[in-house]
């Protein structure tokens, strides 16, 4: 007993924890050093190049407000691309999310296959999709819309199928027991439970699509990115800063609106 009472802990944490934390810290910072050397990007460089940054701020300001009139049509095109792509993506992803939910689709082959396909789709960056479709369909809004649809379906189906998997299955059973067919089960037992989340996710994907469609134009898929690309190539920085400020404002406004709507829904 006396031995135990005289025991003084060396520290709050056991030796093993300390060892693990130390090793992982060394690994994390070692890798950081390696990647800093490989990319020649030490944070110090940022301060070395600060004069550059300030010089650039001088280039960017004041924004060229006379350029605004040329921005509006392309901005609206961007918003239209996002609206159309989101709408079609939502319609497509409803059946697919039912197929990807393991409580609705009990066939594990279909379920696993769908998940595999979606996981692959989600790894492809949106801009690469746009590059491919611009190659196929030529420059213009259509390529952007198709790229965004595929991109959005990947996200939406994952989110929606997760919601479907968590629903209460008792209503489905009750409707089946009283003789409802598959379609009736879906429309009376599943839809009412998941509709608010579906709408909320659709708005969320719309936000993502707005951001994505702003930059799709960089590869020729329509929208404000095209303007941005041209103005950067011309080194017309005042116009670039006008575009960036407008993009910023639009993203903020749409995020706020969609955030308020989603708060009201869920």
């Amino acid at each position, binding site marked *: 007993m006396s031995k135990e009472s005289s025991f003084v802990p060396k520290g709050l944490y056991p030796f093993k924890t300390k060892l693990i934390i130390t090793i992982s810290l060394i690994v994390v910072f070692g890798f950081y050093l390696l990647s800093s050397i490989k990319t020649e990007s030490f944070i110090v460089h940022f301060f070395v190049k600060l004069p550059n940054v300030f010089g650039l701020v001088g280039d960017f300001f004041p924004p060229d407000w006379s350029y605004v009139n040329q921005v509006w049509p392309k901005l609206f095109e961007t918003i239209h691309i996002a609206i159309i792509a989101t709408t079609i993506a939502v319609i497509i992803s409803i059946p697919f999310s039912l197929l990807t939910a393991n409580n609705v689709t009990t066939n594990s082959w279909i379920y696993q296959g769908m998940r595999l396909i979606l996981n692959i789709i989600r790894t492809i960056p949106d801009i690469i999709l746009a590059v491919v479709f611009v190659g*196929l369909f030529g420059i213009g809004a259509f390529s952007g819309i198709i790229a965004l649809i595929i991109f959005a379906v990947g996200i939406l189906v994952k989110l929606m199928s997760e919601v479907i998997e968590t629903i209460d299955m008792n209503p489905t059973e009750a409707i089946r027991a009283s003789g409802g067919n598959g379609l009736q089960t879906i429309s009376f037992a599943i839809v009412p439970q998941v509709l608010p989340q579906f709408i909320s996710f659709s708005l969320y994907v719309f936000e993502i699509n707005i951001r994505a469609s702003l930059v799709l134009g960089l590869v020729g898929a329509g929208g404000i990115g095209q303007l941005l690309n041209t103005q950067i190539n011309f080194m017309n920085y005042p116009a670039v800063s006008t575009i960036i400020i407008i993009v910023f404002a639009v993203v903020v406004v749409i995020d706020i609106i969609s955030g308020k709507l989603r708060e009201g829904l869920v």
Partner: protein
Amino acid sequence: MAEQLTLPEKPKSKLTLVKRIFIFIIIALIYIWTFTSIEIRWDNIFSERTLANIDRIIPKFFQPAVEETGSIMEKMFETLFIAYTGSLAAAIIAIPLAFLCASNMVRNKFLNNIGMWILGAVRAFPEIVLAIIFVAAVGPNPFAGVLAIAIGSTGMLGKLYSEVIESIDMNVIEALEASGANKLQILFYGIFPQVLPEFMSYAIYRFEIDVRASSVLGIVGAGGIGTLITFAYMNRNWEEVGMILLVIIITVTIIDQISGFIRKRLV
């Protein structure tokens, strides 16, 4: 008196009806505006040329340029390095900002709001726009990509971190305060043990996103595999685009699996 059984009237408020009609009209107007003003040249899209393109390009994706693997892998590693450096920097920069935003740490509504505004403003910039700005500032090199990723990730990580901080158990801190711990001790023994696992989990999650994001930054000249995409695309070298796509898909899948595994162990 004959008792007549009637169901209670359905609660129907005029206001909700008006509201619904109003919302419906707004949505309808938005769609009308969209579909009437969007310019899609259908004759260009459904033309012989598109069919020829599809015939020509799609098969090439399925015979990727395997001989380019070396140079593509090299750029992919650069992409990973950019994502890693950027997200680690963001994971550290976000901590003080998160404390500023957390209302149980800084008991000043004004400062909280300032923190929130900074994070919100940063989040509103798409990474590629940040990359454009930094390419103009520090030149077309991976460093611009690192900066873009670091700044872009700070917005999201700061917000998630501050939510974690706000949900911690304050009793522990009170106990520490009562036994005479100073601010630094409270931070190290009261707050960090509670938040670090979740901080790390979010940072790793953000790294996943950053790998995807940094693979396209090269399109604006900020280093990584995106540079190759631009070249391959401009030369209409679809075999190479196919190979790049394959490399990205495999790498991102592997990273997702690893990070998912680590995150499961952490929380």
